[in-house]
């Protein structure tokens, strides 16, 4: 008998990859990257946020390659990110300097600076718009021209606040004495991509993992918290979407000075400060209500996730055995897209050896049981 080794893995893989390409291109039309970039802002923002890599064109490429599947696109970008040397650390970015495009408060109707609705789907009816079927580059450009010709400046001029330095809602609350002031925590933040998490973790590490977390997972856990698996009834203190400038220190000067630093660009971010009421026990059994803050920040416009992150941030600040959502190991270990989808999908790999081993155990334990039964009957 001639021996034929069980081969075929290599060939099968090649064919499978070919098949995948076929599925992507079989309708005979190539989707252009700039069209993804132009028309899929929501997906791009989500993918960039979960990947911790802010680059719209790379995100568009990943989305194209992944056929629009966000988990796969995040996977591609995260793997690419692993090959990039990290050469610089930016100066501390202060979110007061956000160039605000949208800013609302669900706590105060009359916040200084006003509510700025900006671009949001919140006030749209989710009716399918069949006109989009016929949208063309020309019709878009016509609309754009008309939009730009509209005069937005004079009508609201007097109401316009300086969008580059809007006061923070929380500062207003602090000035009113409704919220305890807090010191800046100037500790060097941990970097969860360069050091693995150890418990108890630092808040900076928790915030990083929450902001990288899978949008759906973070939202689900926060939803569980406000539905009852947590002790929270939060309000959105302030939600902002806008551009944050990034500055780098001069590489040759030891002591980084603001005026010597280089401006290297902006990135869009969503920032949320949640207000969470808390009953505090005072002397002689007296109780008072105080506010606590939960913080959320994501790359891009990603409002639900930022709010959810704010809720979970506060949960993790107050460990509570009663609820898994207040357990940092439970939350932080399970919300990462690449980790959770990777491990779930590994179940598709062969497990022949371990299964053979399990078979052996099952047989042996069955043999033992039979032996014992025989023993009993004798």
């Amino acid at each position, binding site marked *: 008998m001639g021996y034929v080794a069980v081969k075929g*893995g290599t060939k099968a893989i090649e064919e499978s990859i070919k098949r995948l390409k076929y599925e992507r291109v079989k309708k005979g039309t190539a989707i252009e990257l700039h069209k993804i970039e132009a028309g899929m802002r929501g997906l791009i923002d989500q993918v960039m946020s979960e990947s911790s890599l802010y680059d719209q064109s790379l995100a568009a490429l990943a989305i194209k390659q992944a056929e629009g599947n966000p988990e796969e696109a995040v996977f591609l970008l995260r793997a690419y990110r692993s090959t990039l040397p990290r050469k610089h650390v930016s100066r501390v970015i202060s979110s007061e300097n956000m160039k605000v495009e949208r800013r609302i408060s669900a706590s105060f109707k009359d916040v200084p600076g006003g509510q700025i609705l900006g671009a949001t789907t919140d006030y749209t009816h989710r009716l399918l718009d069949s006109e989009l079927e016929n949208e063309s580059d020309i019709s878009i450009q016509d609309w754009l021209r008309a939009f730009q010709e509209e005069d937005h400046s004079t009508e609201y001029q007097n109401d316009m606040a300086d969008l580059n330095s809007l006061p923070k809602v929380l500062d207003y609350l602090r000035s009113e004495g409704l919220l305890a002031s807090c010191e800046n925590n100037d500790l060097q933040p941990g970097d969860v991509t360069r050091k693995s998490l150890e418990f108890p973790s630092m808040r900076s590490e928790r915030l990083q993992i929450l902001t990288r977390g899978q949008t759906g997972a973070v939202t689900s856990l926060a939803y569980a918290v406000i539905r009852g698996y947590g002790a929270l009834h939060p309000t959105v203190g302030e939600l902002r979407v806008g551009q944050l400038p990034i500055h780098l220190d001069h590489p040759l000067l030891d002591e980084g000075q603001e005026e010597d630093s280089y401006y290297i660009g902006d990135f869009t971010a969503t920032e949320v400060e949640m207000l969470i009421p808390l009953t505090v026990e005072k002397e002689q059994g007296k109780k008072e209500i105080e506010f606590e803050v939960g913080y959320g920040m994501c790359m891009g416009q990603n409002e639900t996730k930022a709010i959810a992150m704010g809720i979970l941030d506060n949960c993790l600040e107050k460990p509570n055995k009663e609820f898994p959502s207040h357990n940092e190991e439970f939350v932080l270990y399970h919300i990462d897209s690449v980790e959770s989808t990777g491990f779930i999908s590994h179940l598709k790999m062969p497990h022949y050896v371990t299964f053979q*081993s399990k078979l052996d155990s099952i047989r042996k334990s069955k043999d033992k049981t039979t032996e014992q039964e025989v023993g009993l009957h004798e």
Partner: protein
Amino acid sequence: MNKTYNFAFFDEGSKREIRRATLKAIAIPGYQVPFASREMPIGRGWGTGGLQLTLSLIGKDDVLKVIDQGSDESVNAVNIKKLVSDTTGVRTTDRTKEASLIQSRHRVPEVPLQRDQILILQVPLPEPLRNFEPSEHETKKLHAEREYSGAWLMLFEQIMKYGIMATDADHPVMVHDRYVMAPSPIPRFDNAKLDGNEALILLGAGREKKVYAVPPYTNVSSLAFDDYEFEIESFANHACILCGSNDVFLDELVDEESGETYFQCNDTSNCLEMVNQKQSLGVN
């Protein structure tokens, strides 16, 4: 070789960081060293820990072998091999003896390893105490205090329930009389091969962000009781249908036509060598 990526995929800083964690792991046998596990181009849970070790260690002169479930030709082994050779250009081999680096999922090769070889095992669940203690914070303390009664109790309870220690693959081992270690999901059959092995054995868990090691000539013993000894998978009265070996780990297969069960070597490259040896000797 894919020139658009760095040699061995990572930037140099990342490789250095992983090597630093590896050195610590070698210095403390069986201790799980946390490391900043990178995201890889293959799925978390598909061997990223092993792959990161391989990529951080590999040099241009290395010869690489990759095994998955005992086979060099299985889909995942092929995939990992392709990624490493795409980004390094190193030579790959099926022959265990020729390889300087061997990355493996679930098996220690049947051919004894040599002192200039490194075996890298892919580990899905590095924490041997996780079964009875879900918290990482707690298991870390248990290891620090050498508090392993939970592990013994787990085995004891299995004996009470099933009459045997019903561990499957990944039966916990004691390393250098200090740390209880998950030997990656190698079958119980392979546990003994870890003991006093001449090669350096590294274990990497990418998703769980841990690296640990069994340096050469280190004592490794499987947890067991005096009256309930550690038992390996039994293939009594069975031999490989192809090469006739009866002292190796066998896969149980079913003949589609006759419906009969037969056995075949799990380590396919070893099996092939045995067959070739026999043929050249004129046996069979």
